[in-house]
């Protein structure tokens, strides 16, 4: 049963809480939002982070991810049979790239996750809708120095989207 006394005590408790908030936080009226999920490059958390750490990964700022997750990512690359890849980077170098999950973007040149048709090859300067990021990642993990090792694992043979993209804003295709 809700009595006036209970209501009063609730009010007092709330006011105390509000006061204590005010003391510790000069902007007591602000509404805050707490992090739930984050993503930079495709599939990083999905492929490289263990089940026990997936939620933790999503709330670890990129600047702190290398310290927290690089040993786990390096071990996973080793387990995948990783050898120096087509970008000529070693396990340690690849780990240092992967362990900070941000998308590197060029504001001066071509933007692509990987585009071998340009000279020099464009790598990690953005992510276009049409970029076959899965084949790129499979090749970087399994393809070895020439990209030709484990050919049964370096392409899923799905090479594009099931709907054409638009050439102008908003670029993404209409929903099915």
């Amino acid at each position, binding site marked *: 049963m809700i009595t006036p006394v209970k209501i009063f005590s609730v009010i007092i408790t709330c006011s105390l809480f509000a006061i204590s908030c005010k003391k510790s936080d000069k902007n007591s009226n602000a509404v805050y939002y707490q992090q739930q*999920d984050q*993503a930079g490059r*495709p599939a990083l958390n999905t492929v490289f982070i263990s089940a026990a750490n997936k939620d933790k990964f999503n709330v670890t700022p990129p600047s702190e991810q290398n310290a927290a997750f690089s040993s786990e990512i390096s071990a996973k690359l080793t387990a995948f049979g990783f050898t120096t890849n087509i970008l000529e980077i070693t396990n340690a170098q690849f780990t240092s790239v992967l362990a900070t999950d941000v998308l590197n973007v060029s504001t001066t040149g071509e933007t692509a996750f990987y585009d071998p048709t340009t000279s020099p090859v464009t790598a990690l300067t953005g992510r276009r809708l049409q970029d076959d990021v899965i084949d790129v990642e499979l090749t970087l993990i399994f393809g070895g120095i020439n990209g030709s090792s484990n050919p049964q694992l370096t392409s899923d043979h799905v090479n594009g989207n099931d709907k054409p993209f638009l050439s102008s804003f908003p*670029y*993404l295709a209409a929903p099915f």
Partner: protein
Amino acid sequence: MKHKKFLFPALTTVILVTAGILYASDHADAPAVTNTTSDITDLYVFAGQDANNLVLVGNTQGLLSPGSTAAAKFDENTLIEFNIDNTNDNIEDLVIQCKYDAATNTMNIYGPVAPSEKGTRSKLEGNVTASVAVTAYGSAPAIGTQNGIKVFAGPRDDPFFFDLDQFKKIIASTASGFNNPGTDHFAGTNVMSVVVELPKSMLNSSGKLNVWLETKKKI
């Protein structure tokens, strides 16, 4: 081919045991966000049709069937936030915040602006710089243009493509490789998308940015 013998047991042990069921890209990547309005599917950043502009795409709520797309909604309590580092320390120098207002069915954009709070907690920063009515399923895309910023919000085809099912079979050692042609697991599915296009000059860039997408829940 000499790798083949140890590769599959290694794959099976490592991924199957530690990762559980695998999804793809960032779709349903972690237990706390799967099947929530906070679940990010993909981030895309690329030069616009006008090469002076950069386009940022934040997709959430993946694997929506056509039948469930009309009912899909943005969440007033979930902030979708593009984080931009232009000094290469992987700490955000600018944020572009996308906040849905249910009463007006509008997506409001804040920024790009230097945030007063960095890291895992945010508040809305400054004033609305652009806004757009959320496009209804089946309608032509509504485009908001203000302050040099273009914005779209609403359902779109999921641009991600991957033969996820065959990948799962490889992981489970019931297949030795991909099929040719493969089958796109994401064919015919939709996402809830926010697209922001703005002049590169608004991002204080010396040529290189690090960008990541976050979802944050009201506390």
